[in-house]
């Protein structure tokens, strides 16, 4: 997920815990009470993870209500932030599905296979499934959807998910109207040829951008369909999207691709004002209007106190990280020592206590804990606060007191306080002269792209698919800079312009490996290089999410899906 919905992400309260993955260990490690003892305390502060992923059998019925902010789109061609995903995932079932734990499993596909170098993929579809309008879902429905999204005229923000497929450049450039790498000649089989082979391609098919669409969808600019998408998912639209007001979904009774939903209906009330939406969601939960809510950072404690005893509290580390992006090719941050000096001069724990009431955990790795098999806590040894060592490293790297360093953040996202604390610590611990500036988010991205960009920037990153590679390749691979000219703007997501052939080779090997365990090992090695050795970006806080819901009324609602939304497909009314 690109860093678009930064407001949502920023506002979302992040908190934390030690690595207790077992639910309900709710005592004592709440951090706020063991502060200031000066000891080398472990990461045991913040809120423990609490979730209940056990799925039990329910019965049909009930209307689940929640508040969301107005999505960019609910049509798969441009659905992008978690709100859009919530609706689109309910309306559509793609080839694969990403589980809450980050694993990927077949959905509309029965199974898939690939050739030796992972350049050709064959998806065998489940047959006999129908769109909400009765049209059969075939391989052509997928090809139609994919071409609709990647067509130049669609100007889709999510088309880049298709960039490994042969013919992508031609259709994006407008010189072709079809994706030449996609073969739908057999209605039961979808064949895909990749120009950039990847053994993880199947994971991408879980993204809503890769949903099938019926013939009535037309081109991406079909407004009637944009507001009333007809899909093949467990829910269907109940009337068109009422902009700024709400969206109603009802159960699709003839859903056969997977288990039918229990809920009769879902009512999504659109709350206006991104900054206050979380507060309204919580107000709505408390006044009985909504059944599920996010929690504003300043109400984490009271909400937890109220909902945890009634099992209506969800607290989970998810797939995301807050970090400082570094322009690694330009002085003064062009050496690993300089970056480590800066990182070690930042006291993440104190910032978390002072600014976030200890609800965010200091990050000690880059790949989030959600990817259990690739998680390496402590791989960032320079993430530990050590002002003495920081000074030594700074001296070695020529980061003398008085050195100027640019530090930019985006305004309006709730980042003012913690970035200001970082600035203060850099000034105090290293004597740097920090040119600290807040700009609009779009301007900050533009600044980072420029060849003249220097210093550090505040950013966050969230996962799109269930692979740790999604946290490494787009941000650190040489190819992800988007240009080989150091004097041209960076067009990819690797705007810090980190480049290390060794890292690139490991990522390539991982993409070419069919064995998941082997891939994870390669990713771990790659992370060790980019973060442990080179510290190409500076990890700050792990992402943790909190939700409250009414557990007396709803079953199977004790966890979040991969996009941090309620699992509408399994929730039932008690």
């Amino acid at each position, binding site marked *: 997920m690109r860093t678009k919905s930064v407001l949502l992400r920023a506002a979302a309260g992040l908190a934390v815990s030690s690595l207790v993955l077992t639910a309900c260990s709710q005592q004592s490690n709440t951090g706020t009470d063991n502060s200031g003892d000066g000891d080398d305390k472990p990461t045991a502060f913040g809120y423990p993870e609490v979730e209940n992923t056990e799925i039990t059998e329910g019965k049909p019925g009930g209307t689940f209500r929640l508040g969301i902010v*107005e999505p960019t789109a609910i049509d798969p061609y441009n659905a992008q932030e978690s709100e859009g995903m919530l609706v689109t995932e309910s309306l559509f079932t793609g080839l694969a599905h990403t589980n809450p734990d980050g694993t990927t499993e077949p959905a509309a596909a029965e199974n898939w296979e690939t050739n030796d170098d992972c350049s050709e993929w064959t998806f065998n579809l489940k047959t006999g499934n129908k769109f909400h309008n009765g049209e059969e879902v075939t391989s052509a429905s997928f090809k139609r959807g994919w071409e609709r999204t990647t067509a130049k005229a669609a100007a889709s923000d999510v088309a880049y998910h298709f960039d490994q497929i042969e013919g992508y450049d031609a259709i994006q450039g407008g010189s072709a109207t079809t994706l030449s790498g996609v073969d739908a000649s057999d209605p039961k089989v979808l064949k895909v040829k990749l120009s950039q082979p990847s053994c993880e391609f199947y994971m991408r098919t879980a993204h809503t951008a890769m949903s099938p669409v019926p013939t009535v969808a037309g081109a991406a600019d079909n407004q009637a369909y944009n507001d009333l998408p007809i899909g093949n998912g467990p829910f269907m639209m109940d009337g068109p999207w009422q902009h700024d007001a709400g969206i109603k979904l009802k159960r699709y009774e003839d859903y056969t691709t997977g288990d039918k939903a229990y809920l009769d209906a879902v009512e999504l009330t659109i709350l206006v*004002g991104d900054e206050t939406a979380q507060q309204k969601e919580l107000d709505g939960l408390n006044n009985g209007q909504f059944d599920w809510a996010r929690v504003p950072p300043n109400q984490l404690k009271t909400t937890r106190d109220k909902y945890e005893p009634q099992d209506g509290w969800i607290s989970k580390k998810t797939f995301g990280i807050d970090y400082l992006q570094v322009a690694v090719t330009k002085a003064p941050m062009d050496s690993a020592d300089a970056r480590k000096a800066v990182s070690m001069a930042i006291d993440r724990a104190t910032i978390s206590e002072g600014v976030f009431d200890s609800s965010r955990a200091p990050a000690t790795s880059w790949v989030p804990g959600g990817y259990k098999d690739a998680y390496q806590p402590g791989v960032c040894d320079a993430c530990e606060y050590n002002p003495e060592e920081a000074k030594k490293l700074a001296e070695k790297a020529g980061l003398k007191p008085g050195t100027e360093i640019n530090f930019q953040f985006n305004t309006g996202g709730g980042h003012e306080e913690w970035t200001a604390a970082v600035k203060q610590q850099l000034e105090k611990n290293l004597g740097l002269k920090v040119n600290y500036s807040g700009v609009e988010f779009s301007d900050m991205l533009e600044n980072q792209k420029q060849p003249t960009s220097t210093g550090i920037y505040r950013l966050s990153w969230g996962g799109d698919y269930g692979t740790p590679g999604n946290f490494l390749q787009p941000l650190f691979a040489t190819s992800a800079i988007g240009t080989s000219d150091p004097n041209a703007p960076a067009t990819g997501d690797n705007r810090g312009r980190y480049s290390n052939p060794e890292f690139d080779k490991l990522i390539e090997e991982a993409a070419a490996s069919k064995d998941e365990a082997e891939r994870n090992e390669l990713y771990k090695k790659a992370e060790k290089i980019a973060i442990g050795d080179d510290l190409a970006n500076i990890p700050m806080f792990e992402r943790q999410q909190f939700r409250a819901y009414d557990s007396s009324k709803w079953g199977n609602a004790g966890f979040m899906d991969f996009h941090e939304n309620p699992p509408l497909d399994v929730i039932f009314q008690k």
Partner: protein
Amino acid sequence: MAKFITRRLAHAVLVIIAATFLIYLGLFTLGDPFASSGEKTVPPEIQEALRAKFGMDQPFFMQYLTYLQNMFTFDFGIDFEQRRDVADMLATAVPATARLALFAIIIEVIIGLTAGIIAAVAPYTFRDVFITIITTLGIGIPVFVIGIGLRAWLSGEWIFPAVPRSFTVETPWWQEIILPALTLAILDAAFIARLMRGSMLEVLRADFIRTARAKGISERKVIGKHAFRNSIIPVVTYTGVSLGVLLGGALITERIFEYQGLGYLLVRAISQHNNPVIVPIVVFAVVVFVLLSTLVDILYAYLDPRIRLH
């Protein structure tokens, strides 16, 4: 009287021209109102259409005239967020705000006048002191405190709708209006009560009241007719001004109760940098305010013939 009205209207037109010009200067010449800013990039085709609509390639004077023409023909362009016709958005928000404003005014005038008269008729008695204390509180407590308090205690109870609520819950408009109208009315009612008390106390000491009483006119008539009409002038002014302000949208109150009026629309538009929505709301607020104060002046002259002569 006709001459007086013409003169006042001419003033109003002048003020409106000056005000719209200042708004124009502020919004258009100190930067491009249709440029991207904030999180979302404004689609280039929308920017272009708006620039064309507002004639931004033309000389300054023509630009201003085009803007005036757009404002007074209700042709505002499309908004950045939803790509909806701004005129349509205003067409639903203006009546909502007007309803709220009128309701609030009715409540505050009834409560304010009654309390003011009761206090003035028997000054320095318990009743008077009691009303004085209550009105001091009413004026002293900020409107957002009253709003949030009413929302926390009453919304979702009895007939008062919950805030926020699921969009499928239908609520009659009058239920939706009660709490925000009360919130708005409390402050103004307190103020009106004080104005009325002060002004009436003064009038009651006047010679013509003594004369009226001496003539044996009933006390009810003395208060209700002679004193009332003469002491209501400051209240009329204040109410007019207050109505003018309310019609421009009650930003805080509408936001607290998520009441879909002009004020809430403006708050949202500002946070989204949605200039095509901001521009007409601001202009509308100014025009309504000027027209209402003109109307008040005229009413004033009708109530107090002396003013016409000046």
